[in-house]
């Protein structure tokens, strides 16, 4: 239930704790607080005061992760399982099919890309069944699996919540 009005005293408590950005304010009181700020010079003064501390905190950035950490993560990443050996005639049948659609060299290139695309589609499309480890370790192309794992680790802004809803 949204609150329709809040007092200047309550706004002061809010900005003293949560800062000047309405996105951080308690959701139930946000609209009322924003309305008060729009209507009251005293409320705007309180927000400006909180903003000064926000700016001060932002004046202390942290360093970006080091290259050494990236190397450690790469070394520690889970490895894809080896694909089972197929019978020679099965391999030849697949090779013939792939050469028909990819006459430019090793069919491993389109095969890996195709497999990666299918897995990516499954990853993005699956709902309520997210398991990064299980999905990434069965990828057919090792290089692509590595990319996916690192992409997962680096997916800083867009964590894959939408995959799980």
């Amino acid at each position, binding site marked *: 239930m949204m609150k329709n009005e809040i007092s200047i005293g309550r706004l002061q408590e809010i900005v003293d*704790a949560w800062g000047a950005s309405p996105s951080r304010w308690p959701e139930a009181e946000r609209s009322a607080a924003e309305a008060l700020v729009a209507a009251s010079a005293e409320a705007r003064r309180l927000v400006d005061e909180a903003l000064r501390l926000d*700016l001060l905190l932002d004046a202390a950035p942290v360093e970006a992760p*080091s290259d050494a950490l990236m190397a*450690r993560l790469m070394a520690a990443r889970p490895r894809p399982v080896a694909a089972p050996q197929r019978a020679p005639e099965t391999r030849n049948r697949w090779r013939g099919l792939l050469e028909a659609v990819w006459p430019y060299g090793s069919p491993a290139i389109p095969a890996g890309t195709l497999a990666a695309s299918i897995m990516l589609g499954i990853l993005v499309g699956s709902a309520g069944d997210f*398991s990064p480890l299980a999905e990434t370790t069965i990828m057919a192309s090792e290089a692509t699996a590595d990319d996916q794992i690192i992409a997962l680790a680096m997916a800083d802004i867009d964590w894959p*919540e939408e995959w799980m809803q």
Partner: protein
Amino acid sequence: MPRMVALARRMLGNRADAEDVAQEVFLRVWTHAERWQPGRAQFGTWLHRVATNLCLDRLRKRRPENIDDIPEPVSGDPRPDENLERRELAERVEAALQALPERQRLAIVLSHFQGLSNIEAAEILEVSVEAVESLLGRARRQLRETLATERDEVLRINRTGA
């Protein structure tokens, strides 16, 4: 991953420990992803919880008698083009942050720096939203007092740097 390093860096006060924690977070994600329970927490919140718990474990293992062993906050790689004034200000803000009690610092880190919603921060801290507000209120009051001089300084630096 940079967000996990940032969280740990601000909680632990040094880059080496922060990167160890970030690495541990991702090892756990890779090896224990099944422990994440869909519907109970968003994946990002779950990651923050794992990182937070690892940080708190490290802080608790730091014995008071070994306080001298705790690395001093460092400003990172040399940044020759950065204004000395800004770097000194950043170090004073960092020191004020590190001087906060652990849970107050965690509340500020989760809400202000990590940008989590008040509900997510409450979930990670395992308290109510009202309790988070109380922690934040005390933390910011302490920071305002400690950094009273610097608050004017940051406005001046921002104006001249604009």
